[in-house]
């Protein structure tokens, strides 16, 4: 149904994306019960292979796997290149020897999950939990699920929904996955950022681009704020954090420009005061905490759809 791996939001067609969202909806009720555990993946071993620090995503996947009764091993590897300790290949071979049915991998190098999926080192399913600046498919899925819940009554696709994504698009895997998935689900996407943080070649992406936040906000059904790293100043992407916030930060006055029912999203972790002000982050229009909850359910759905049947053939390789 989904192919063997989940590496990119761009690999999902509309039917597959909807299947994941619908499955998430069914699983969401599990989270509300007192017994939150399902026996579905009992006997399966899921490995969290995290080369980058990320407590939030790691715990989300861990919880998702445990709620399906899978055995979870977490492998926090620091340093990915050959010179800094065990190589990706050797780590993968070790996991294969331990019998991993699925490897959830977060890595600082774009394409690392693809290497795991195609190099022949492991046999199991590979789920991309974020690779470099490339993709973060489960984040896009939970964002789509959140949008669907609030704007589309929890059903169907996102036809006609206008999503504005603001921030460091150039370095954001969340932005890339979201642009692809939102387009697949029929949403309209506008990227807002200073030109230095918009990638060359964005003309080929299925979205529009604007350098002006205020105009975009007025038409948005949802605004997704991306984290901006202050360290980017060293690369001269913007002159100061103050100027960045002035031009591209979401604060209370800007919130007023938005439609009444429009929601504010953020993949986390937030830089309160830089891309999003504290009062916006805490306002009732911000659904950030809900995104986290949806994250567990979405990841349960992905794990179920990848591991809950007879092993399927690897797609396209």
């Amino acid at each position, binding site marked *: 149904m989904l192919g063997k791996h989940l590496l990119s939001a761009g690999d999902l067609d509309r039917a597959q994306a909807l299947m994941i969202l619908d499955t998430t909806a069914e699983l969401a009720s599990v989270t509300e019960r007192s017994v939150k555990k399902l026996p579905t993946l009992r006997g399966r071993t899921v490995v969290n292979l995290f080369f980058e620090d990320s407590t939030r995503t790691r715990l989300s996947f861990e919880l998702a796997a445990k709620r399906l009764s899978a055995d979870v091993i977490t492998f926090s590897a620091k340093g990915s290149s050959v010179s800094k300790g065990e190589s990706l290949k050797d780590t993968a071979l070790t996991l294969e020897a331990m019998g991993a049915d699925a490897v959830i991998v977060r890595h600082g190098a774009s394409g690392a999950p693809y290497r795991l999926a195609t190099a022949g080192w492991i046999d199991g399913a590979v789920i991309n939990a974020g690779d470099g600046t490339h993709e973060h498919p489960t984040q896009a899925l939970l964002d789509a699920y959140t949008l669907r819940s609030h704007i589309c009554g929890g059903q169907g696709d996102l036809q006609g929904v206008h999503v504005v994504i603001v921030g460091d698009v150039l370095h954001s895997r969340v932005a890339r996955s979201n642009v692809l998935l939102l387009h697949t689900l029929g949403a309209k996407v506008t990227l807002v950022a200073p030109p230095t943080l918009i990638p*060359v070649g964005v003309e080929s992406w299925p979205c529009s681009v604007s350098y002006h936040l205020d105009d975009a906000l007025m038409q948005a059904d949802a605004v997704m704020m991306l984290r901006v790293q202050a360290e980017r100043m060293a690369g001269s992407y913007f002159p100061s954090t103050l100027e960045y916030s002035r031009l591209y930060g979401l604060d209370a006055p800007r919130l007023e420009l938005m439609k009444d029912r429009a929601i504010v999203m953020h993949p986390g972790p937030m830089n309160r005061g830089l891309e999003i002000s504290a009062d916006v982050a805490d306002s009732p229009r911000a659904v950030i905490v809900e995104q986290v909850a949806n994250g567990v359910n979405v990841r349960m759905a992905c794990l179920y759809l990848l591991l809950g049947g007879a092993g399927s053939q690897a797609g396209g390789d």
Partner: protein
Amino acid sequence: MGAIVLRGGAPYGLDPHDIVVEDGVITEMTPSNQSGSDALDAEGVELELDASGCTVMPGLVDLHTHLREPGREDAETIATGSQAAAMGGFTCVHTMANTSPVADTAGVVEQVWRRGVEAGIVDVRPVGAVTVGLKGEQLAELGAMASSAASVRVFSDDGLCVHDPLLMRRALEYVKIFDGVVAQHAQDPRLTEAAQMNEGALSARLGLAGWPAVAEEAIIARDVLLAEHVGSRLHVCHVSTAGSVEIIRWAKARGIPVTAEVTPHHLLLTEELVESFNPTFKVNPPLRRAEDVHALREAVVEGTIDIIATDHAPHPREDKDCEWAAAAMGMVGLETALWVAVEVFIESGLLSWRDLADRMSTIPARIGQVPDQGMPIAPGSAANLTVWDPSAQGTLEVDALVGKSGNSPYLGRWMPGAVRHVLFRGRPSVVDGALA
């Protein structure tokens, strides 16, 4: 030492001839199937090589190779690299200076030259570094390297760019003493920090830091103007973009003494291969767009790009068996250069064998000022000859490569033929498709 007869091969793909080689020189050439060829069956023929159905070329000369010795003998040595070169039809290679220690003194270049002589399979011509340690701060002792036994004439910091305009100017001026040439690796370091692939729509989608074409073109533009200003020869290594071609075309039209090279992989492969995130396709400069490949092919035909040079860059397996960002940049190319050239230029009819001989033998020898290489196939010339057999087709397997490293992007590809025999200074280095 007896004579060697190469029977039935067609020099430059024209009429079959029998070629007699004695004491390192071509002594006789007679058309095959002429009654006169019986006269060659005299005693004193030590070895007869069948070249029927084959094309005979002057021994190929590579102006850009990395033999890794000294320092990275795990990837390649001068001996194994020479073997790989011979299997590819080369009788001369210029080995770049980015070794460890860097080839920036007479001592190191002489060491490299001597190891090449010991291996005795091809002419190994060391390239001298332009700056000390390739640091780009201070000129290396170019004069000492030129007067050494290695007789260096080509200087390059390849691997790195001589990015300081003042230093580049000084180098261009200085090499005029011994009519040397500076070969520039055109890559502005500031525009390509941590770059992983060609910058464009694909790099944006794949989330890999981009290496913009302008980082190459801006340096070439600057360098050709400097070369014009000081009146010195410039050579541009591994040209990879359509924009670079236009700048070189403009420079030549102005009479600027610039020559340029392109690698076989930039004539055949495009950036779409990076979608697989397989580091086999990671190279510097990166694989570019189809438009660039076409512009480069046109430039080779037209002569704007003068030569094909391999940029043979061996890497041990662990440097490629990893995630993209951690992988080394480079592809081996000595053993596959000629078949790529045949596929791109000969089979398509874009070039004749004679034209290809110019671009892979005659002109590189001239740029590198290598005596006895790139000579016409005629009596009196040094006997550096390559025999290409179009019937020896097959799929490229990694075990077939004799070089030490297997990082070739062509594994599993169909090859339109193979090198059958190679004579180096009149002695066989390759016989019947295997090392002699």
